[in-house]
């Protein structure tokens, strides 16, 4: 196909059913950010209920805030960039959804939340955040947009497959939202959907069907990423010259490829339990509402947990590895120093990737597994923390002696290091069976994994968004607004998640719709529920600065900045945004490792040497 022919593509082929990895990456990004906002909104409703159980939720305030943001975007878009106004649809959509919640007798009658609806919010918050928000943002958006550019490829290896994986994900996400509107509502058995509860609870069928689409999308995407990385690297871009972000995406794709099929089977089996009356996960004699259910029995509820966690533990690394990749790029670029231990990072990545498949049953210590089995999983869990610490150590050593620039992405990256540290270290007690038996199913677990995925993954994605925004749109995001956004988000997140650890150690159980009012032993920590609600509001309010920042920056019409961060990797070797077809004007050739900052060239110090620049470097 010639260039001229492609330029003639209609609007639909160019912006909606595009096969260009950059457009697909943006589609993924916008969809995933919308899902993150929706998942966040569900959480705000839950946190309000926990802080003020049984009281009326100020739903009208929520609706008005979202409508106000929507109109602000339309106003800011103005006549100069009318298509930006389309983004307001996301905010009107969420406003409409909250309004819808208050209409039904089984959800929020009069603004007072019913326990069943709290369960729906809990299950859907987890599902949306993990499967429809963070993974598509990490892999679908960042991977799709940045990976082909960083390896100097014209596109992904299978562009049409790429488009298919986005649209399959889109269908899955849409089905997930539709499930709120079905009789019986959305799934309410938690994002883990443990059997046999999930086999008999309402709302689960649609969840399973939607999940099958989401899984299919990830599998197609994973094949594409691996083939692209192996086959389409530019000339001279040997394995150990790959930017570390590419490595993380490469290993992540393997985790998706090999772990997701087990949940696929699990989901099909649970679906058959529900629609065909099979009893894969149902033992004989299950009693519901005083009646014995009509199932043949003979199934094994623990089988579901095995199938689920065989996916869901590698999934944790799918959430965190791309984040580590982004942070590595940002930290190296802003310390103006080569990455301190590149090979150690790569080998650690391989070890993490492999070990993540053999630690999964540490989620199941309370199922009554034998000592021998528990020992195996405790040991591997302790071993997997070693490469994770290597990542953090390497990043700190990279900072050591660097000329650090405190840009907005760097602030996020610097905050990420201790935040991920807290997330990882609070996981150690959960990886050992004796303390886990005490802490299991308490708020401590919630605090731990939220520290990993919220200040861990999401802070890293913010760093990535600020870092690559000039690549995607031609202009840096505003620094002042960015710093306000950073501090508000960081403090808000800690205000929400640190109290969870305290409450959990005091013994507060998770999944209680009234925040644990009825239990004497958690009364001393009940006041924290209110703090956490303030923290959640704080996070929400400071995201408005981020949204406004994006809209305001997109309005700029001045010429774009080619390489504003003075970075060395290949994505900066082309225009910003990159050429619509083929990314690069000429195929780039690579001469250097990825992070050559402040190196000696011909006897004098060179601030940075791009990978594609042919000069001789001497250490």
């Amino acid at each position: 196909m010639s260039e001229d022919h492609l330029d003639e593509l209609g609007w639909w082929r160019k912006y909606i059913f595009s096969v260009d990895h950059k457009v697909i990456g943006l589609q993924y990004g916008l969809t995933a950010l919308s899902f993150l906002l929706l998942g966040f909104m569900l959480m705000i409703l839950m946190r309000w209920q926990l802080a003020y159980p049984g009281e009326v939720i100020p739903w009208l305030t929520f609706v008005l805030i979202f409508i106000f943001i929507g109109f602000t975007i339309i106003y800011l878009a103005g006549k100069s960039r009318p298509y930006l106004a389309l983004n307001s649809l996301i905010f009107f959509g969420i406003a409409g959804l909250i309004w819808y919640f208050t209409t039904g007798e089984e959800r929020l009658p009069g603004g007072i939340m019913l326990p069943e609806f709290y369960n729906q919010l809990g299950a859907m918050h987890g599902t949306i955040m993990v499967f429809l928000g963070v993974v598509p943002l990490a892999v679908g958006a960042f991977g799709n947009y940045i990976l082909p550019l960083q390896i100097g490829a014209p596109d992904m290896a299978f562009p049409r497959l790429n488009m298919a994986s986005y649209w399959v994900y889109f269908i899955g996400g849409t089905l997930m939202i539709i499930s709120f509107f079905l009789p019986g509502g959305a799934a309410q058995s938690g994002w883990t959907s443990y059997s046999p509860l999930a086999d008999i609870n309402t709302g689960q069928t649609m969840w399973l069907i939607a999940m099958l689409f989401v899984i299919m999308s990830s599998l197609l995407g994973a094949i594409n990423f691996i083939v692209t990385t192996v086959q389409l690297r530019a000339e001279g871009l040997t394995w150990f010259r790959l930017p570390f972000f590419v490595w993380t995406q490469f290993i992540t794709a393997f985790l998706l490829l090999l772990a997701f099929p087990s949940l696929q089977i699990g989901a099909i089996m649970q679906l058959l339990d529900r629609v065909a009356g099979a009893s894969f996960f149902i033992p004989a004699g299950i009693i519901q509402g005083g009646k014995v259910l009509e199932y043949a029995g003979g199934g094994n509820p623990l089988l579901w947990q095995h199938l689920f966690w065989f996916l869901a533990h590698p999934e944790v690394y799918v959430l965190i590895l791309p984040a580590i990749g982004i942070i590595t790029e940002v930290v190296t670029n802003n310390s103006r120093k080569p990455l301190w231990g590149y090979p150690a990072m790569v080998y650690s990545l391989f070890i993490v990737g492999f070990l993540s498949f053999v630690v999964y049953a540490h989620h199941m210590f309370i199922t009554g597994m034998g000592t021998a089995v528990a020992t195996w999983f405790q040991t591997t869990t302790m071993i997997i923390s070693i490469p994770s610490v290597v990542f953090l150590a390497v990043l700190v050593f990279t900072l050591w002696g660097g000329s650090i620039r405190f840009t907005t992405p760097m602030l996020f990256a610097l905050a990420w290091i201790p935040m991920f540290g807290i997330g990882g270290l609070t996981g150690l007690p959960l990886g050992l069976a004796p303390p886990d038996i005490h802490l299991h199913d308490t708020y401590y677990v919630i605090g731990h994994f939220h520290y990993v995925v919220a200040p861990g993954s999401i802070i890293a994605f913010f760093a990535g968004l600020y870092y690559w925004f000039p690549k995607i749109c031609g202009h840096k995001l505003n620094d002042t607004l960015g710093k306000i956004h950073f501090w508000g988000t960081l403090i808000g997140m800690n205000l929400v998640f640190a109290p969870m650890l305290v409450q959990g150690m005091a013994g507060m159980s998770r999944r209680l719709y009234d925040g644990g009012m009825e239990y004497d032993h958690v009364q001393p920590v009940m006041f924290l529920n209110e703090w956490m609600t303030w923290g959640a509001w704080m996070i929400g309010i400071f995201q408005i600065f981020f949204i406004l920042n994006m809209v305001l920056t997109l309005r700029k019409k001045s010429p774009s900045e080619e390489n504003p961060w003075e970075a060395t990797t290949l994505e900066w070797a082309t225009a910003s945004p990159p050429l619509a077809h083929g990314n690069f004007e000429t195929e780039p050739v690579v001469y250097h490792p990825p992070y050559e900052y402040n190196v000696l060239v011909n006897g004098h110090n060179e601030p940075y040497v791009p990978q594609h620049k042919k000069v001789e470097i001497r250490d």
Partner: protein
Amino acid sequence: MEIPFTVTERPDTGLTNPKFGIWLFLASEVMLFGSLFSSYIILRIGSPVAPHILAWPIQSQELNVMIGAINTAVLIASSVTMILSWAALKEQQFKKFKLYMGLTIVLAVLFLALKIWLEYLPKIHHGHVMSSNTFFAMYYLMTGLHGLHILGGIAVNAYFWGPGSKMWQSNPEQFTNRIEIAGLYWHFVDLVWIFLFPTLYLL
């Protein structure tokens, strides 16, 4: 814009993109059926011993071993014709390709027909369905998922036999590669049955 290494091999990896892609897809399929076989093992060894109502039945008495054996032969034969169709393209004999690919499709349809009319329908007629017991649930799930893979293979092969074969005129090398990839998938589906047959019918 052309994506490199769609038809020709990348020198340092020795692979074309689609060939690498199908191997990765098959790796994922191994995990899919691996999870399924593992579930089968867990459910079977977890079932109580014989006089118990939930005991695992003696499989060879429940299923039609003869039809299963015939189907095994049918599927192996289709694998052979599949590879012959690819070899025919390598020898530039398009008519021979049409013949062997046609045979592959016919054998695959025969497999599904035997499966449905001589196994599924009589079983369902006798009231053996998914809700009967865990063995039948597992039987329908495993053979059903395999059957869906056969159906997908028939669709792909029929496309290459019919409208897709026009590519032989414009780009014979890429068309030959496509048949090779379809063949890799087909052999995998065949291989799954080689494991399914003894697991479900004989053991």
